[in-house]
């Protein structure tokens, strides 16, 4: 079987775990179909977050979608949350096999 690769954008949002519900809601409302959430720990400019207990948890939200949608989501996250919450956002280009799933 011949593999045909299609280009999509992987958007990663690392944020305080308290935002998970809002972020997932916002991402779905904008039309993203594929997302995963994982718990992580690490540090940003705001300090170290070890994830040792409830208020110290951090999540990593990954969304694979079209580049324009990734931009749209990132712009929203930036304006809605980045002022008060510790948020890291980055993009990378990924190749997927079945583009209609994203």
């Amino acid at each position, binding site marked *: 079987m011949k593999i045909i690769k299609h280009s999509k954008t992987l958007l990663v949002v690392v944020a305080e775990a*308290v935002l998970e519900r809002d972020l997932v809601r916002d991402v779905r409302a904008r039309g993203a179909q594929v997302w995963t959430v994982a718990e992580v720990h690490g540090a940003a400019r705001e*300090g170290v977050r070890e994830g*040792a*207990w*409830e*208020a*110290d948890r951090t999540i990593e939200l990954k969304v694979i979608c079209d580049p324009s949608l990734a931009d749209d989501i990132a712009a929203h996250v930036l304006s809605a949350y980045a002022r*008060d919450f510790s948020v890291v956002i980055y993009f990378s280009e990924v190749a997927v096999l079945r583009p209609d799933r994203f």
Partner: protein
Amino acid sequence: MIDVVVLFFLLGVFARLAQSDLRLPEALYETLSIYLLLAIGLKGGIELSKQPVAELAPQVAAGMALGFVIPLALFPVARSLRLGAADAAALVAHYGSVSVVTFAVATAALARQGIPYESHAALWVAVMEAPGLVAGILLARWAVRPESGADRVPTRWGTLVHDVMLGKSVLLLMGGLAIGAVAGEAGTAPIKAVFIDPFKGVLALFLLELGLVAGARLAEMKRYGLAVLVIGLGAPPVLGLAGAGVGLALGLSTGGVALFATLAASASYIAAPTAMRIAVPQANAALSITAALGITFPFNLVLGIPLYIKLAQVLTA
């Protein structure tokens, strides 16, 4: 003599400050906290099944009122220590709410000293969790001015009520109370070996973990200056005195007065940080947590609880 569970806490603090590699797996922390909340609820519920619930209404009302008033009283103090309005509102909300583990350590201390207390006391914990948070959010709404040009973001009360009332701590405490009350002494006998007997051992393990977390906060104390230290050490004895007064007015037993004092003096570090993060996002969360978990929690464990028990003994003598 210092209670054995407090020694576990101190071991955790020491391990952290000494930069030991000791870490408890996060899943264990989660499991232990669920266990403790359920066990505390169950124990109170079993006793609840033996008495008419209507008689407890004054205690419930007084506990809720106390939780609501504490932030209002502390707020001007926090402001006078040069904390910003948002930081002050979030901080005092932690003190209006309660710490379940501080309560558990106080009950263990009372049991060890053979001082009886109202065995439905878990009910007080469950109802005192939320009012302080509501007061803190109202203070923030009232005192924090939106940045120029920016619209005031509406508080999503629906989400907040859902998160606090159905959040893990209130849900498990209330759930445990309900199960204990419905099943009674006989019904809960088969699970006694898991939920009642090993309670203190589990509490010790949980305190070891909390010692590690509090130790990390302790190290951060100097970042937040004098205000955090003054509130963290000054608020508990004063609030404890107020709580003891309320307990006395309610006609509680010596142990009950000590527990009311402990609840008033304790600061929440499970429900409050999450609720305040959503409701007052512009507040510095680390500041509140450093005060509540890094200073007040160890103070209450080591000095506060013995003090409140002594106070209750003097007041009810």
